[in-house]
């Protein structure tokens, strides 16, 4: 067993106690959006013929990516800050023969696992609604994991230095919510006002949404901006890797007092 694996195990032991409470936020909420928006709003959208594909398909794949980002944000904010400030579990880990990289990698692995499970379940819900159009869809939960890590890793770095929970609340309001609205989850980013479209390109979620849509609906579906898949993957990988390095550096600073 590797040392990051031992850290992952620790987080799973905690999850065993709280998993019921997380079902709503990490699984039911996206499903509610999918059903509510997809069925109700979808009917208007499809009647107008504004999209080249059924709205249920459009929003389902977008929400799949969003599921990853949402779990990532929740699991990499308060729990990371609390690991230094409240329960101080990182100080306990630092006294064991773990390296800082083990702590960060193990917890990111845990978050990835959580996302894979939630996104996989969500994908299953999409099937009977005809929102899955390709066998490539099995890769969509992995895309959700990748976009989740692209958000979680830099969040670790932020939460490791933040002094007050208010800062985290601000981040949820001014980062998560706009990201959800402006990343092509509910409508194509081409609908955004001219100045805002590049903002969507900068956000990790948009790349995740594009990749998820390609996976769920197939490479030939009439969607997306035409960016090549490797470009999306590379961009998300950059966020994840850069965030990881920054998080390790900040964890190390915080622990070495």
């Amino acid at each position, binding site marked *: *067993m590797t*040392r990051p694996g*031992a*850290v992952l*195990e*620790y987080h799973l*032991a*905690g999850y065993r*106690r*709280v998993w019921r409470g997380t079902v709503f936020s990490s699984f039911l909420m996206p499903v509610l959006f999918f059903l509510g928006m997809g069925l109700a709003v979808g009917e208007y959208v499809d009647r107008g013929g504004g999209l080249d594909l059924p709205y249920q398909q459009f929003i389902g794949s977008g929400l799949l990516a969003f599921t990853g980002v949402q779990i990532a944000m929740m699991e990499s904010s308060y729990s990371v800050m609390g690991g230094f400030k409240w*329960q*101080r*579990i990182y*100080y*306990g*880990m*630092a*006294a*064991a*023969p*773990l*390296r800082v990289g083990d702590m960060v990698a193990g917890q990111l692995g845990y978050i990835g696992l959580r996302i894979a499970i939630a996104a996989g379940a969500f994908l299953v819900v999409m099937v009977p609604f005809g929102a899955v159009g390709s066998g490539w869809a099995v890769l969509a939960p992995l895309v959700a994991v990748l976009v989740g890590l692209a958000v979680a890793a830099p969040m670790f770095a932020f939460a490791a230095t933040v002094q007050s929970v208010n800062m985290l609340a601000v981040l949820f309001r001014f980062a998560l919510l706009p990201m959800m609205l402006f990343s092509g989850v509910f409508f194509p980013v081409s609908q955004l006002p001219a100045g805002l479209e590049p903002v969507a390109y900068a956000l990790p979620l948009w790349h995740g949404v594009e990749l998820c849509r390609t996976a769920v609906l197939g490479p030939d579906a009439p969607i997306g901006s035409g960016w090549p898949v490797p470009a999306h993957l590379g961009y998300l990988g950059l966020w994840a890797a850069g965030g990881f390095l920054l998080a390790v550096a900040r964890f190390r600073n915080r*622990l*070495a*007092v």
Partner: protein
Amino acid sequence: MAGGEALIRARGLVKRFGEFTAVDGIDVDVQRGEAFGFLGPNGAGKSSTMRMIGCVSPPTGGELTILGMDPHRDGPAIRARMGVCPQEDNLDLDLTARENLTTYARYFGISRATARRRAAELLEFVQLAERAGSRVEPLSGGMKRRLTIARSLVNEPEIVLLDEPTTGLDPQARHLVWERLFRLKQQGTTLVLTTHYMDEAEQLCDRLVVMDGGRIVAEGSPRTLIERYATREVVELRFGGAGLEPFAGKLAGIGERIEVLPDRILLYAGSGDAAAAAVYARGLSPSGVLVRRASLEDVFLHLTGRQLVEAG
């Protein structure tokens, strides 16, 4: 102890935080099997020293060798053979007592089966076996402390670092912890502890250093320190609510030395009873007289001019 194997060796060890010097060039040797203490008031640099020995805080200067290795290069290898009970418990309050031990054991690469067995043994050792399946949060402070100590033993360490192991515990809980630590020592585990309780240091430590302001001001066994820096006995005199300075003058010449504290006067003498009799012979009538054995508290007072645990 001389000639033994030094498990921890520090020379001119320094820790600075910006302008502030927490540890100001200390030399320490801890031998295998001994219980070694850092005694001093809050802010003396004890915890900073412990964190450097625990390989989590890099020294700013000086040399430090632990188990023959360099903490900077071999941190994980040293930590694998060491147990740490930090000043503040950092248990996972949502997990059970048992899970806290088993998950922690896994960080040391201990197999699940061994981790479970050792958790059961250690919970027995710290007398928490009945609470094995309880969440940690509602446990009392003393129980949490014992659980933290149990966790520090999960890798069967050669050295256990205990940063103020009984601070904040009630007397009964303290005695239980002392008793367990004493057993560990008997089993041959090297203990390194910090404390600002002189009774704790006297109970547990074979050898200790007195720290003040980041420096070591004295070193030795509790007994030799008391012999060197205090008399055999002490008379504590109280004189109602009046200012004590005038009385100090009237006591001059009795015993070997006088310390005036805010609430009482300490009279250091080989024989406390004889000194007390001399006080009465001078026509003084203190409202309280207590003859006691000299302690490390007196050593500290003599060395620094301050009390170890501030009165009140």
